C-alpha cells in the first residue's frame, strides 16, 4: 500500500493544493489580496506537483493492485495536464467572466478536474476508468454553469450533464458486457480473456461488438468526437472562456489517452481470426469527426463555436492516430497534443482578449483588429495558421507526424483515411480564414473600443506563441521526450 501511495505522490500534492485553496478561500478575509494569495498557492501546488512528477522514478509499474498503471505514457499526459492547468489558472485570473470573489471556487473545481485527468490517464481497470471520467465530469458540469446569472451558461451546464449522463450510462453498459464476457475488470486480463474467448457460442461476436461500441461512448464524449460531440459547441459558447480553454485540451487529451490505453491494452492489436476490427471503427469515427468539425465550422459566426467545431475536428485527427495504433502513431498523437495545447489555448486566450475589448465573441467583432491591435491579431493569426497545419508553425509538424504514421501503416484503408485527413486541412483553412479575413482584410466596423487588455492575457498569448512557432522549426527535444515516455504498461 505504501508502495502504491508513493506512486500517486503528484496526485497527493494536487489534493493538498485543493485543501489549501479551500482553507485559504474560507479564512482569508481581505477580499483584495485573497485573489493574489489564491493565485500564488495554486501556482505553488502546480509547481510542487510538477517537481514531484519530474522526480518520480521512471520505471513502469502498476499500483493499487493493478488499478492504475504508472508508466511513461501516463507521466507524459500528467505533465501535459499540469501545463494546461497552469494556463487555466492564469486565464481564470485574467478573465472578467470569473467573478473576483469566486476565483477560489473556480480554482478548486479546476484542480479537482485536473486530479481526475491524472487518474484517467493512468486508469488500467474498467472501474477506475469510469470513476476517473466521473471525477472529471462532475466538477466540469459546475464549471460549465459557472456564470449563474447567464442563461447560456446554465444551458451549457444542463446540456453537458444530460449528454454526460447518457454517455457514461452507455459506457457503463459496455463495460458490464465486457465484464460478463471476460470475468475481469483489469484491462490486461480483459485482453487475455478476449484472446482465448470461445467464439463458437452463438452471439459472442455480437456481444463483443456491442461491448466495444458502447464503451467507446464515454471516451468519445470526453474527446468530443462524433457521435458524442453535440454538447461541445453549446458548452463552449456558454461556459466561461478560461474553462473552455482548459476543457478543449485537458479532458480531450485525457479521453484520448484513456481510449488509447483501453484499446491497446484492453484489446491489443486486432490480429487473429476472432479479433474485433477496432481500427476500422475508430478510423471511420475519425474521418466522420474531422469532416463534420471542419465543414460545420465554416458556418459559425461565433468564434467560440468555431473553435468548438475546430476542436471536434482535431479530435478526429487524433483518433486517426489511435486507429493506426502503432507506437509511432501513439507518439504522433502525443506530439500533436503537445502542440495542440499551445495553439488551442492560445487561440482561446486571444478570444478572451478580444472579448475584454469589445464584449463580443462574434467574428464581426474581430473586424479591423489587425490595424487596431496588431500584436493581438498577429498572435491569433499564428494560432489559427498553426491549427490549420501550415508550415512553419507547430501544427504542421503535429500533422506531419500523424500522417506519416498513417501512411506508414501501408494499407488501402489508411491511405484513403490519410487522403480525407489532409483534404480536411484545406477545408479547415476556409473556416479559420473567416476570422483571419475579419482581422486583417476587412476594415473596422465602427469604433473599436480601445479598452486595454490585461498584461496577464498579453503575457499568456506571447508565452504560448513561442512554442507554437518554435516547434514548427525545431522540435527535436519534444520528440525525444515523447520517445522516452511513450511506454504503455501491459
Amino acid at each position, binding site marked *: 500500500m505504501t508502495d502504491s501511495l508513493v506512486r500517486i505522490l503528484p496526485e497527493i500534492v494536487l489534493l493538498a493544493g485543493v485543501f489549501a485553496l479551500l482553507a485559504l478561500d474560507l479564512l482569508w478575509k481581505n477580499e483584495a489580496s485573497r485573489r493574489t494569495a489564491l493565485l500564488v498557492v495554486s501556482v505553488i501546488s502546480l509547481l510542487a506537483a510538477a517537481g514531484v512528477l519530474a522526480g518520480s522514478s521512471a520505471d513502469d509499474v502498476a499500483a493499487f493492485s493493478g488499478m492504475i498503471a504508472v508508466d511513461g505514457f501516463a507521466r507524459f499526459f500528467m505533465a501535459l495536464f499540469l501545463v494546461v492547468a497552469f494556463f487555466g489558472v492564469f486565464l481564470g485570473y485574467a478573465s472578467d467572466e470569473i467573478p473576483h470573489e469566486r476565483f477560489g471556487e473556480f480554482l478548486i473545481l479546476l484542480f479537482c478536474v485536473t486530479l481526475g485527468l491524472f487518474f484517467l490517464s493512468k486508469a488500467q481497470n474498467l472501474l477506475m476508468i469510469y470513476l476517473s471520467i466521473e471525477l472529471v465530469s462532475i466538477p466540469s458540469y459546475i464549471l460549465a454553469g459557472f456564470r449563474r446569472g447567464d442563461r447560456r451558461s446554465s444551458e451549457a451546464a444542463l446540456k453537458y450533464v444530460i449528454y454526460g449522463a447518457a454517455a457514461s450510462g452507455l459506457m457503463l453498459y459496455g463495460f458490464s458486457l465486457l465484464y460478463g464476457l471476460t470475468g475481469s475488470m483489469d484491462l490486461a486480463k480483459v485482453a487475455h480473456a478476449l484472446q482465448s474467448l470461445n467464439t463458437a457460442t452463438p452471439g459472442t461476436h455480437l456481444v463483443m461488438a456491442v461491448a466495444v461500441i458502447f464503451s467507446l461512448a464515454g471516451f468519445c464524449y470526453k474527446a468530443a468526437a462524433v457521435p458524442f460531440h453535440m454538447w461541445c459547441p453549446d458548452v463552449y459558447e456558454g461556459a466561461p472562456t478560461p474553462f473552455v480553454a482548459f476543457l478543449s485540451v485537458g479532458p480531450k487529451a485525457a479521453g484520448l489517452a484513456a481510449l488509447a490505453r483501453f484499446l491497446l491494452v484492453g484489446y491489443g492489436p486486432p490480429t487473429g481470426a476472432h479479433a474485433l476490427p477496432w481500427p476500422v471503427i475508430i478510423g471511420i469515427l475519425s474521418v466522420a469527426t474531422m469532416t463534420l468539425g471542419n465543414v460545420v465550422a465554416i458556418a459559425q459566426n461565433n468564434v467560440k463555436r468555431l473553435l468548438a467545431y475546430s476542436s471536434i475536428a482535431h479530435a478526429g485527427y487524433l483518433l486517426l492516430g489511435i486507429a493506426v495504433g502503432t507506437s509511432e502513431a501513439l507518439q504522433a498523437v502525443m506530439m500533436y497534443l503537445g502542440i495542440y495545447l499551445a495553439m488551442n489555448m492560445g487561440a482561446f486566450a486571444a478570444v478572451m482578449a478580444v472579448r475584454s475589448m469589445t464584449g463580443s465573441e462574434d467574428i464581426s467583432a474581430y473586424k479591423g483588429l489587425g490595424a487596431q491591435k496588431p500584436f493581438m491579431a498577429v498572435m491569433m493569426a499564428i494560432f489559427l495558421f498553426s491549427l490549420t497545419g*501550415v*508550415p512553419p508553425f507547430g501544427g504542421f509538424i503535429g500533422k506531419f507526424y500523424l500522417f*506519416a504514421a498513417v*501512411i*506508414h501503416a501501408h494499407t488501402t484503408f489508411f491511405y484513403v483515411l490519410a487522403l480525407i485527413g489532409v483534404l480536411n486541412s484545406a477545408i479547415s483553412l476556409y473556416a479559420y480564414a473567416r476570422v483571419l479575413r475579419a482581422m486583417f*482584410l476587412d476594415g473596422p466596423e465602427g469604433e473599436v473600443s480601445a479598452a486595454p487588455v490585461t498584461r496577464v492575457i498579453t503575457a499568456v498569448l506571447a508565452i504560448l506563441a513561442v512554442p507554437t512557432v518554435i516547434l514548427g522549426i525545431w522540435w*527535436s527535444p519534444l520528440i525525444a521526450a515523447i*520517445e522516452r515516455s511513450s511506454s504503455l504498461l501491459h
Partner: protein
Amino acid sequence: MVYATNSTLLTWLIFTPVLGIGAILALLALRPVAKFSQEMIDQASRAIGLTATIIASLLGIVLWRGFDGGSTGLQFVHHFVWIRDFNIEFFVGVDGLSISMVILTVFVFLAAMIASLPWFGKLDDHHPHFSKKRVPGYMILFLLLETGVLGTFCAQDFFLFYVFWELMLLPMYFLIGIWGAPTRTESDGRVRGGPYAAIKFFLYTLAGSVVMLLALIAVYYTSGPSKLIDGTVTAHTFNIVNLIEMSRAGVFAAAAPILGMQFTKVIFVALFLGFSIKVPMFPFHTWLPDAHVDAPTPISVILAGILLKTGMYGILRFNMQFLPDVLTWAAVAIGVLGVINIMYGAFVCLAQKDLKKLIAYSSVSHMGFCLLGLAALTPQGLSGCVFQMVSHGVISPMLFLVAGVIYDRAHTRDIEGFGGLATHVPEYAAMTGLAFMASLGLPGLAGFVGEVLVWIGGFGSTDTTFRWLVVVAIPAVILTAGYYLWTMQRMFLGSFKEKWSHIWDLTWRERMTLYPLAIVTVILGFWPAPVFDLVNTTLFHLLSIVKGGV
C-alpha cells in the same frame, strides 16, 4: 553521391530577407521606447525592404559568377542535419535549373520592391495607393515571400522543399487580401476582390500541396537505407539526390502498389497535381485570373514572374528527374494539357476587356508552352521549356507593370475606355508595345526563342503525336498576335479621349523597373546564350536519364 557543405552563400541568400524582417520587427519593438512617428517607421521599413532585396540581388550575382555551367552536379552546397529523429536535413544547393530560377527570382523581386515604393515619382494623391498602407506589414510579408521562393528553388531535401513551398502561401494570402483590390460586386452579382482572390489562391494551392505531403511521406517510407551527412546510417531518407539515385536503381518502381495502382504512378499524379495547380494548368487555372487581377501590381509581378515557375520547377525536379519512367508514360497527356492551356488561354484573352485580366490569361497560355516543351522530351523542347520559364519570368512582370502604370493614373483598366494614348504618353506606349511584342513572340525578343524551341522540340519528338499537337497549337501564335495588337489599337491608336488628358507619362520609379526588364528582353532575344550556358548541361543530363541513356 554525397554533397558536403562547401559554401554557405546560398543560406545567406535565402535568409537575407529574413534578416530584413528581423530589422523591421526590431524597429516596431523599439517604437514605444524611441517614440518613432508612423512616417518614420514606414520610410525605414521601405528602406530596409529595399536594402534586403538589393543585397539578395548582389548575392545572386556572386552566385552567378561563381557557378560552373559545365557541371551537372550541385554547387554551393550547404548541408547539415536538421531533425535527426526524422532524418530531415537542411540541404541546399543549386544546379543549372535551380540557379537560373534563383537569379530570375532575385531580380524580379528587386523590380517588384521598387514598384512597391511610393518614391521617385508622382502618385495620384486623390486615391489611396497600396504602397502607403500598413507599410511594415507589407515589407515583412514581401520579404518572407522572397525567402519562401528562394528556398523552394534551392532545397535539396524533400521535407525542406515542402516547408519552403508552403511558406510561400501565407504571405501571398495577406499580400493579395490586404493590399489588393477592395471587395466589389460585379455586374452579374458575383462578389469579387482581393479577399476573395486571396482565399481562392490559398485554398487551391493548399489542396494541391496537402496531397503532395502524402506523396512525400509515402516516398520517404518507401525509400531505402541511406546516410545522413554526418555518416549516420538511416532506414529512409528525404535527401532528393539520394531519392533520385534510388529511383534510378528501381527502388520505387518495385514498391508495393497503392490502391491497386502502381506506386510510382500514384506518386507522380499526386506530385503533379500539387505542381500543376501552381503552373497553373487547365483545369486548375481558375484561381489565377482572380489572384492576378486583384493583387497589387508588384504582387502580380511576383505571381506571374516567379510563383508560376515554382510549379514548373517542381515538375522538372520531381516529376521528371525523380520519376522519369512515369514521365514518359504521362508525356502525351501532359502535352495535350499543355496545348489546351495554350489554345484555351489565347481564346479567353481575345474576349477580355480588362487589361490585367488579359495579361493574366496570357500567362495561362504561355505556361502551356512550358508543359508542351517538357512533354516532348527532346533537347530543344526542354531547353525551350526552361527558356520560356525565364523569358516569361521577365516579360510577364513587364506586362503587369505597364498595366499597373495605367491603373495608377486612370483607376480603370478597361481597354475600351482608352484610345489614342500613343500621342499623349509616348514613352508609356512604347514600353507597352515592347512588352506586348515580346510576349507575342516577335523574333529578336526573348519570347520568341522559347516558343520556337518548343515548336522545334515538339516537332522533333520521336513520338509523332507531338507533331499533331504542335500543329494544333500553332494557331495560338496568330491568336496571341491578334489579341495584343487589337489591345494596342484600342488603347493607343485612334482618337485621343480628352478625359485622359490628366494622365502623365512614365516616372523614374516606373523607368527603374521597366527599362532593366526591357533590356534583358532584348538581349535574351538576340543572345540567349547566357541562359543556355547555365541550364543546358543540367537539362541534357536530365534528358539522357529520362531517355535511359545513363
